């Protein structure tokens, strides 16, 4: 076998491996985003119940509650892009966070069984969403690294792959969560 033939086979093999690894990384990102999406949907499903339970009491937070309802209907629109979903999630997380803090100012709400139950469900879901977000970010980082690093960057640009956005991890997620305090509140 001539040297040039061996060289062609080796180069071909390297190209195939690079191509496959890029496709695998892209699919991994998509797969994990599907899981994030499922968790986010679960949270959106809780919103109508939450709004209905707290709106009677929360006079001062009317606009935040309206924002939450609007965000939910935006999220439920068909054909919204992954980037939009990421942006909506960030807004929803901060709006829900402020509602949960505001609940502390309403003794009636704090004692309400239904609200307590919702609060716990949301807390649990937040933990799961946070895990899914972090997994997604890792998959995107691996994917984006491959897009920028030599030699896969040449192949990626030939395939038309574009870098993807990561979820912003809120500072509050990095803090120690005191579950006892949340529940006893």
């Amino acid at each position, binding site marked *: 076998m001539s040297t040039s033939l061996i060289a062609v086979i080796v180069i071909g093999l390297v190209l195939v491996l690079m191509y496959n690894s890029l496709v695998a990384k892209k699919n991994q990102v998509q797969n*994990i985003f599907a899981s994030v999406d499922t968790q986010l949907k679960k949270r959106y499903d809780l919103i109508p119940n939450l709004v209905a339970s707290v709106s009677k009491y929360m006079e001062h937070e009317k606009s935040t509650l309206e924002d939450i309802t609007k965000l939910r209907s935006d999220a439920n629109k068909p054909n919204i892009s992954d980037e939009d979903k990421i942006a909506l999630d960030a807004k929803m997380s901060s709006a829900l966070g402020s509602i949960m803090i505001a609940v502390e100012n309403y003794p009636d709400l704090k004692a309400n069984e239904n609200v307590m139950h919702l609060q*716990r469900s949301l807390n649990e879901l937040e933990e799961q969403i946070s*895990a899914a977000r972090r*997994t997604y970010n890792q998959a995107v980082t691996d994917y984006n690294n491959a897009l920028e690093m030599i030699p896969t960057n040449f192949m990626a640009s030939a395939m038309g792959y574009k870098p993807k956005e990561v979820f912003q*991890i809120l500072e509050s997620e990095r803090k120690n*969560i*005191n*579950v*006892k305090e949340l529940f006893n509140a």
Partner: protein
Amino acid sequence: MKNKSELTDFYYKSLYPVLKKLDEQRKHVLYRVILVLSFFSLIYGALTYFFLNASDLNLDFLLASGVVYIAIVGFIYKFLIKDYTQEFKDTIIRPLITAIESKLSYASHMHVPQLHFNRSELFSHPDKLNGNDFVKGEIDSIPLQFSDIHAQKRHKDSKGRESYSTIFKGLFIVAEFNKHFHHKTIILPDSAQKTFGDFIGSWLQSNNFSRDSLIKMDNVAFEKEFVVYGSDQIEARYILSHTLMEKLILLKKRSGHPVYFSFVGANIHIAIYYDKDLFEPTLYKSLLKYKTAMEYVDTLHMAIGIVQELQLNQKLWSKK
């Protein structure tokens, strides 16, 4: 649960009369051990010398005789300190455990069942497993158990001779975890990245075929200390929140030994590789010495304190 300084107080105040008596016993036992072993060694040496001169026995005989000598010395030593060891466990270790938490039970001759050890998937299944100092009970209504474990693998050489190598020797802790999970997450000390550097190390780790897929965590300090394998990427991160990762790093630093964690079934398994039998009385050092006392108090307090340290008592809603 008592804190460490309360425990140290308890060790020196309440246990002091017993300790003093036991330390006297220790001196007697030490004297007897030296006497008996010196006498035995003398006779054994003389006999070996006689047999070597009497016939043309070679190096093999000398080697075999050496092995037999070590085995007999070990046996005699264990026999001589047996009563002293038992007395120490009954009068010092047991009260210490009850002082930390009265709801815990202690059995000095038992160990964590092999089922738990195998299920943890931290190590390969052992051919021989023994241990002692089994503690079991509930802390803040969280089931907890731990003991000394020595797990060994059997090997056979070409001549059919058997030998054993240690898989794990140290403290093995099992406790109920505060979150629901369905898959397995295994956390091992990161030796590959430390030895071969980040690039080759992580390539080696991702190609470890005996484990599930490698999971990279988003905490640099944690990644430096540990390597995570799991069957579900998202669940591993659900278990390993930023808070828990910090706590695991702290636990590793505090113990000063290699630490292994696994999340299987509903439990967290923690294996701390001390490479020695814990909770055994010292023979050559005084029991009244501060350093000796603190070793027992520290280890017990750390093992029993795991529930509060890792906040296993703060269950999420779904687990209530």
